[in-house]
Every structure is written in C-alpha cells, then in structure tokens.
C-alpha cells in the first residue's frame, strides 16, 4: 500500500509540474492585467501542433535528441509569437480605447473567450479534427524525469526573472499600478508583451512534454489541461507565481490519489471540491495576499 501511494505521488508530481507550467501563464497575465486569458489554453494547443510538425520534420524517432530539442524550441518560439500577437491584436486595442469606460473588465474577458474559440476553430480548419500521436522519443519513465526537472528549473528561472532583474521589477510595478508604472518611465506595452511571451513559451514547453508523455494532439486538447491549469492558478492564489506551482502540484497529486480509490471517475469533482474548500477558507487562494505584490 505504501509503495502504491509513493508511486502515485511520483506520477502526481510529474503531472502536477506540467499543469503548473501552463498555470504560470494564466497567473502572470492576471497578475499584471487582471485579465483571465482564456486563449492561453489554445496557445498551448497550437504549441503542441507546431511541436508535432517540427519533431516529424526533424526526423522523429531516427534522431530523437535533435527532434526533441529542435521541436520543443520551435514550438516555444511559435507560441511566444502567437501569444504576443493575441495580446497585440485582441487585448491591447481594447485596453487603450476602453480606458476610463465602465466595462473595461468585461470586454477583454469576452474577447479572450472569443480568441479561444477563434484559435480552436482555426486549428480545426488547418489541421482537421484528427487525433495525432507524437513519435516516442524517450521511454515514458525518462520523459517524466525530463518533465519534472525542466518544470522545476523553469520555475526557479522565472522566480529569478521576476525578483532579480529590471524586467521583473517592471512587471511587479505594473501589477501594482499600470498608470503609475508608465509615469515612472516603464514601457508598459513592452512589459505586457514580454509577459505574454513568457507565459506562452512556458505553455508550449508544457505542451510538447505533455504530448511526448501521454496525450495526442487535436484541436480541443487545450480545454482538458487548460481547465486544470486555471483551477491550479486560482487555488494557489491567482497572480502569485509560487502559488501557481503549488496549485499545479496539488491538483496533480489529488488527481493521482483519487485514481487509487474506487471513485476515479469522480476525479474532476474532487479537484473542484478542493478548489471550493480552499476558496471558502482563504478567498485569495493558498498563497495569494490581498493587494500585495502580484505578478
């Protein structure tokens, strides 16, 4: 029994760190813009598609190392670009034009939903609804190690970026007050773009690892992991980077633990019950502090 729990815990940690990679994108954008970027899950999906095409083009199983690394980098670059485009095309105009009007919180939110639907349908049009499997570049046990290590190092790097660099300082300034940050000479639109790029790049990394390990690629795949990642961000305290990691790990572990019981079909019920329970006790999420530093 103890062995079983330990095994599930290890699987849960790997699963959770992948969810956390996606959750970071939600939480960073929310921290700065107070916007829930629903299109994030679609950037994740697009990243998975580009990763698939790049890995196949680079030789797949014949050259696992080159294809793996090259494919991941291609997916990350593309997703970063896509994330920035989504922000520039859909959100930025609303922000500048809607300034001072009453519905500034709702319009970007609905636009984000619209972007999500648009990207999903675009993928269906371009790539069809067919399920495609990644070639197996690594044995599954090794993929999981790679997931855990890369997720962990990314989180450390992100923490350093936010707390040790000028860009990070600018991000934190924006999260406190965009207008004040602009007055201090921060180029806000550039900082926002970089935030979107960072989040999207991490999502693409998560997407490629996710598909190498367990999933197939298809246009609605973003919804599955996107919902969980969003819940993870909220449980951890949306806007808070270590919170997203904690939330992701928690959800991964809860998920794996339910699978050991007879109620495995109720996994999502338990995940959302955990969310409600956390929010009832601590409305700002586990690590969220009301109106203190949010990035």
């Amino acid at each position, binding site marked *: 029994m103890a062995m*079983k729990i330990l*095994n*599930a815990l290890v*699987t849960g940690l790997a*699963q959770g760190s992948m969810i956390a990679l996606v959750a970071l994108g939600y939480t960073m954008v929310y921290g700065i813009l107070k916007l829930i970027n629903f299109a994030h899950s679609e950037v994740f999906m697009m990243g998975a598609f580009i990763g698939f095409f790049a890995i196949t083009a680079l030789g797949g199983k014949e050259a696992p190392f080159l294809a793996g690394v090259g494919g991941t980098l291609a997916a990350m670059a593309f997703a970063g670009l896509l994330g920035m485009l989504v922000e*520039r*095309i859909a959100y930025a*105009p609303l922000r*500048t034009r809607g300034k001072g009007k009453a519905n500034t919180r709702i319009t970007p939110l609905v636009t984000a939903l619209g972007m999500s639907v*648009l990207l999903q349908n*675009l993928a269906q*049009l371009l790539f069809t*609804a*067919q*399920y*495609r*499997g990644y070639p*197996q570049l690594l*044995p*599954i*046990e090794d993929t999981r190690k790679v997931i855990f290590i890369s997720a962990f190092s990314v989180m450390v790097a992100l923490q350093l970026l936010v707390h040790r660099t000028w860009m990070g300082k600018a991000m934190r300034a924006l999260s406190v007050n965009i207008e004040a940050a602009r007055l201090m000479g921060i180029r806000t639109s550039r900082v926002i773009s970089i935030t979107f790029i960072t989040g999207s790049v991490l999502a693409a990394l998560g997407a490629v690892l*996710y598909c190498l*390990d*367990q*999933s*197939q690629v*298809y246009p609605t795949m973003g*919804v*599955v992991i996107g919902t969980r990642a969003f819940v993870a961000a909220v449980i951890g305290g949306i806007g808070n980077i270590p919170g997203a990691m904690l939330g992701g790990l928690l959800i991964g572990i809860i*998920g*794996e633990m339910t*699978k*050991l019981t007879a109620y*495995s*079909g109720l*996994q*999502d019920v338990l995940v959302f019950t955990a969310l409600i329970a956390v929010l009832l006790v601590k409305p700002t999420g586990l690590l969220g502090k009301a109106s203190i530093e949010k990035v």
Partner: protein
Amino acid sequence: MLGRRGWVMTIVALGASALGLAACSTQKDTPQKDAAGKDPSVPAVVEPWKVGAYLSLSGAETQFGAETKEGIELAVDAVNKKGGVKGRPVKVFYEDDKSNPQETNNKVLQLITRDKVVALLGEVASSRSTIGGIVANKHKVPMITSSATAPEVTQIGPFVFRVCFTDDTQGQMGAEFVVKTMGKKRIGILYASDDVYSSGLAAQFRDAAKKLGGEVVVEKSFIKTETNFTTYINEIRDAKPELVYAPIYYNAMVPIARQAKAAGMPGSTFVGGDGWDAETLLQDAGEEMEGAYFTNHYAPDVPWPNAQLFLKAYKERFKRDPSSLSSLGYDSAQLLFDAMGRAKGDTPEAIRDAIAETKSFAGATGTISIDPNRNADKSIVIVQIKNKKFTYFATVNDKAAAKP
C-alpha cells in the same frame, strides 16, 4: 510598427481570409453532393427509386460519414449495374447533417417531405440516428442505420432497423470470447465512466463474464479526457488479471497502450471493442498493441466470400482497405435494395414489412437476419492486432444458425 489603423486592417484581413476559407470548404461540399445525387446512368423514361441518406459529411465526425457514404455508393453502383431493383434504377439523395442534431432533424424531414424518399439510410452515430429515427417513424418511412450500436435506437418504433450489432451483444460476446474461447477466469476491466459506449459495454461484459464463471479481480474507470493512465495501470497490474477488457475509443487506447508497455503490461493482455477500429491506433501504438484482440463488425481478411467481393470492389474504386463503417454502409444499402426487391408493393410500408422479414441476408459483414426487435442478428468477428495490422482471428455467436 503598425499604427492603430494598421492593426484594424490586419484584423479585417484575417477575418476576411477566415471567411474565405470557410466559404471554400462549403463550396467543396456542394458539388460533391450534386455529383453523387445525380446518377448519369439513370434513363429518363423509368422513374427511379428515391432513397434518402443522411450522414455526417462535415463537422466533427466527417470521417465516419464519408466512409459510410463510400460503402453506400458502392452498393448503389452494384445494384444499378445489375439493372436496378424491379427494373427501376436506384437514386440516393445524400444530405449532410453537419454532425449536428438540429440539422439532422431538418435534413431527415426534407428528405421525407420534399424529396418523397421511400426509405432512409443513416446515421453513423447513435445520437443522431435516434433523432432521425423518431422523424422517420412518425412519417412511416423505413430507416436502416448502418452503425448506431446503442440499444435504444431501434426501440423507437416499427420503422427503425439496424445492420450492426448492439452494444449489449458486443459486451456479452466479448465476455464469451474471454471466458469461453480464451479460457481466462481472472479478468480486469478498464473503461471511461462518463462515456455511454464505454461504460455500457463494460457493464454488459461484467454481468456476462460473471455468469460464465469469470472473476473480475480489478475494475478501474477514468474520465474520457484523461491522458495519464500510469496509476490505473499500476493498480491493474498489481491485481494480476489474466486479461483486461478495455472497451475504449482508439484515441484513449493509444496512450494506455504506451503507458501499459512502460509499466510491463504487454498489449496482448488487452481485449477491446469496435471503438478500436481505426488506422490511427495501428500507426501510433501498433507495436505496443501487438497481440491484442477486439470484437468488431468486420476484418479486412475475414474469410467470407461476400466480404472478399466487397473488399475487391472497394479497393478497385478507392485504392485502400475499407473500414468497418464502409462495409456497414454497404450492407445497409444492399439489405435495403434486397428488401425493396422482395416487397409486395412500392410503398414505404411494404418495404418496411420486407425489411422486417429479412432472413439470412449474405452481407459483407456476415449473414444478417432481422430479429423481431428490428436488430441485426449476426456474427461478431474477433480481430487480432498482428504485425501492425488488423487480422481476422475468429467468429463468435451463440446462435449457430447465423454463422456463415
């Protein structure tokens, strides 16, 4: 950098190109429908038989609809080459229900009231067959669904028939194969709890296996969007079942097979249902699934003469192996034409009676008799995955009479 106007123009351009793409895809569908609808071989003097077919030719389940249509087309060509039914050629009106329930209702109504068809073929999915079946039954037009396996579909009323087996029979036959043919008593079950097909099959299998003397040592259910199966597989492996029944769609089976192999469970420990029947499974997990069995309607190398005739005709025309859906579409049309030939009159009611009386019809998917509940009484094929190919293994059915 683009200015604000520049961005507006970009969005407009993007939107326009998206619209253009959408327009292209709809345009592509229309000529197809026309080409299929108008049969050039129809002589002008003889009034052709009007048969309606409603299928998912676009939308989420395009592939299923398109494959079924190929089968129907083959059957129509075959019957018209032989001079039609009772000397009159057959003309099929194809309608695309866009994989959408609302659209299904409209299209079936159109076929019945506008085109005045004498019989209907379709749909692929149980959900849309139910909708079409209700309309057809109300207007007293016989309908044959090729691949709707949910038991409820034919319970709609006396005008709804099917040429495939039901989920109930499939689950029971799966149990019969595992317990009787393979002689395995310690069985595991893995299924998707929020999927009617998967959980239905699992329930039928469980009951039947217990009755036959098998013991279900472990049972795990997951939600159908699940992708990480390691914990489930570890649980199942530790219970040491001899075989695991996994009535799951092929898209979930790919990650299961890969992760099971990593956990030390070979593909040959799995037995599945007709949801596995897809090329994708062979492409993405062919090696991992080596030796696995599943219950199906059909196998490319099944040793029945009619199946081989169909296979040859299909390969000649479409240059690849047919799927189960194509062969079922072919059989649904063939069975209908056979009944039309036997019917005492040309009315939908007379055709309905003839379909209901069908006994030992020799189709591509086996010998089909229509039972009093309007379901197909036919054999089930066991397919084995061998060298990344679906190969015929055996035929199971408790009714010896239906064997080919």
